């Protein structure tokens, strides 16, 4: 009655990125133990080297699409793009870190290793095609981020953010696990492919469990992605966490989360019982996120909180593509393209903004008023920040505009004209607070803090990160096919 399980056949090249990433992170921890104290800051450059190596290995691994570990992972084109985005994000995060890590006395080795572990979780999340692997990847990612959030041990705000993030995260994970249990109970499998196969048969008896299970899993993802009714942790955690980690939480974990959500939705969406009506939940969540995110951002005084709310709104925009993918199969390809492109765009814009915030912030202090007159004292930083804000607003020819255009046109093709209109209105509202940052930087008298910023060197790595992301924001805005034509 039960077949003897066999050892899944493994190709080294297919699993190399994951294995090497893991070993690399451990090696950095070990090296940190044995290195003398003054040499320990080599960890971050080593970490960057690791990211480059993984990028190379990933390209190798994705040469041929495959399903290592008996179908638990799936190395398809979609995952490839997500991994590219994650690696770019991770690389840029490491680049913007050194001065912050130095300034706040964060242990280099642990910081880098945990960052790499978090990236491992993200990459696995993007390729996992099985619910338990997905859960474990999510946990690898989340635990690393909980710890990284609280890594500024001398800063009580950092610990408080870690506490909130951890408790609420564990709370949402419990729902996610319950959801997996119900999905398993309805279909008898945790492999998404098998679930999709068994749904029509199982659906007759236990359709309700599929819905409950999917609903709970969706709720878990909504937490990770900071989508509207489950977004409330985000501003507090973003404010309290070390700024490079905030950037990483805001970008990487969202990219990975959306990738995983895409996999789950794709396995369920073709099931007969899932009509277009079913996914109106996503419609409501998207609208909530866009409205709440954009409105609440207007009254924020802290740049990190502002970006937190803006990231909630952007999650709402991105969720539109998931809605389209789930409910209108005809537009699925376009919407997937829109999703991938927007994830890249979102990553670049946010990392640029946070990169400038790190260069300007002193001791975790990031009041918008401190950016006053930055254009006079450090014009390049101000220009970079302005570019990020314009791109977030969606002004052409930046990636932000092209990304929004992709998303809204996919929505229109799918017949969600009203969503496109709401999204557009929301982005008109968003112009108010993004613009405020620009106005403060360009048209106010320089503040004491801005003058101090000008005296401090930005640092070579951070400058490189800012340059790369600025150039990419403009170039990918003018030539979007460069990214979408990668594969």
């Amino acid at each position: 009655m039960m077949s003897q399980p066999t050892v899944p056949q493994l190709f080294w090249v297919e699993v190399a990125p994951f294995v090497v990433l893991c070993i690399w992170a451990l090696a950095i921890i070990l090296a940190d133990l044995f290195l003398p104290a003054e040499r320990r800051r080599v960890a971050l450059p080593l970490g960057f080297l690791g990211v480059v190596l993984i990028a190379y290995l990933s390209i190798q691994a994705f040469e041929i699409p495959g399903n290592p570990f008996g179908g638990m992972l799936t190395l398809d084109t979609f995952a490839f793009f997500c991994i590219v985005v994650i690696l770019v994000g991770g690389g840029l995060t490491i680049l913007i870190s050194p001065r912050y890590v130095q300034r706040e006395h964060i242990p280099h080795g642990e910081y880098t290793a945990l960052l790499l572990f978090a990236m491992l979780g993200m990459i696995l999340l993007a390729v996992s095609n099985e619910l338990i692997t997905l859960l474990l990847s999510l946990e690898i990612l989340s635990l690393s981020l909980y710890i990284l959030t609280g890594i500024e041990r001398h800063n009580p705000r950092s610990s408080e953010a870690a506490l909130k993030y951890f408790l609420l995260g564990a709370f949402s994970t419990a729902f996610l696990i319950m959801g997996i249990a119900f999905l398993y109970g309805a279909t008898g499998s945790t492999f998404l492919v098998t679930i999709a196969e068994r749904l029509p048969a199982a659906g007759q008896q236990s359709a309700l469990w599929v819905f409950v299970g999917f609903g709970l899993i969706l709720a878990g993802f909504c937490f990770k992605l900071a989508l509207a009714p489950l977004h409330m942790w985000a501003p507090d955690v973003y404010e309290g966490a070390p700024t490079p980690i905030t950037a990483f939480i805001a970008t990487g974990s969202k990219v990975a989360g959306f990738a995983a959500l895409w996999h789950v939705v794709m396995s369920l969406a073709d099931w007969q019982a899932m009509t277009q009506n079913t996914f109106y939940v996503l419609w409501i969540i998207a609208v909530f996120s866009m409205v709440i995110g954009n409105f609440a951002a207007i009254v924020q005084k802290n740049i990190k909180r502002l970006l937190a709310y803006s990231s909630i709104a952007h999650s709402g925009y991105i969720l539109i593509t998931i809605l389209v993918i789930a409910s209108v199969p005809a537009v699925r390809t376009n919407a997937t393209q829109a999703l991938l492109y927007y994830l890249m765009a979102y990553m670049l814009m946010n990392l640029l903004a946070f990169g400038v915030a790190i260069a300007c912030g002193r001791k975790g202090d990031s009041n918008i008023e401190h950016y006053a007159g930055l254009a006079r004292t450090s014009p390049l930083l101000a220009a970079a920040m302005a570019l990020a804000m314009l791109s977030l607003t969606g002004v052409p020819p930046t990636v932000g505009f092209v990304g929004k255009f992709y998303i809204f046109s996919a929505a229109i093709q799918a017949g969600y004209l009203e969503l496109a209109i709401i999204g557009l209105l929301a982005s008109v509202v968003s112009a108010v607070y993004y613009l405020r940052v620009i106005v403060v930087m360009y048209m106010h008298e320089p503040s004491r803090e801005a003058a101090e910023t000008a005296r401090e060197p930005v640092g070579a790595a951070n400058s490189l990160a800012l340059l790369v992301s600025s150039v990419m924001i403009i170039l990918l805005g003018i030539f979007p096919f460069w990214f979408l034509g990668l594969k």
Partner: protein
Amino acid sequence: MPVSILYYALFVIALGAALMVVLSRNTVYSAAFLILTMLCLAGIFLLMHQEFVAAIQVIVYAGAIMVLFLFVIMLLNLREREILLPDFRSLRIWVVLLVLVFFVQVGATCFIVLRQMRDVYPPELPPDTIPLIAKTLLTKYLLPFELVSVLLVIAIIGAAMIARHDEPAEHSDSS
């Protein structure tokens, strides 16, 4: 039937203990009731012939995790008596209502689904499942098995680093 009597006894005790975890004001008592809940659940697992999970439940959960909890409770010397949130005095009814909504809607689906399944009998498991579990774990579930080790490594590194006392030497090495 003694088995069903035993089952219902475990059911009631588990439920009561779970309630007491929330209701008891002393954190140590809460932990003890949590252990009791876990033991009852292990008993229920045993009744379903899931001996391995039951064993793990007792050894790892009740034995290891809860000891860790108790250890931390003692370490932090939490003498102050746990009181419920003051803000939630008035909101408690809403909290209970929300949870009831959750319970009712998910529970109702279980009733509806299972009513259609009346005739389905659980198939028999092979008598000796542990070798099969071991084999499946290391073949089909090899990847999650490895990932779990990564997860534990992260937890260890993180816990050690966050909870570590700040030594005076640390300031000098990072400056």
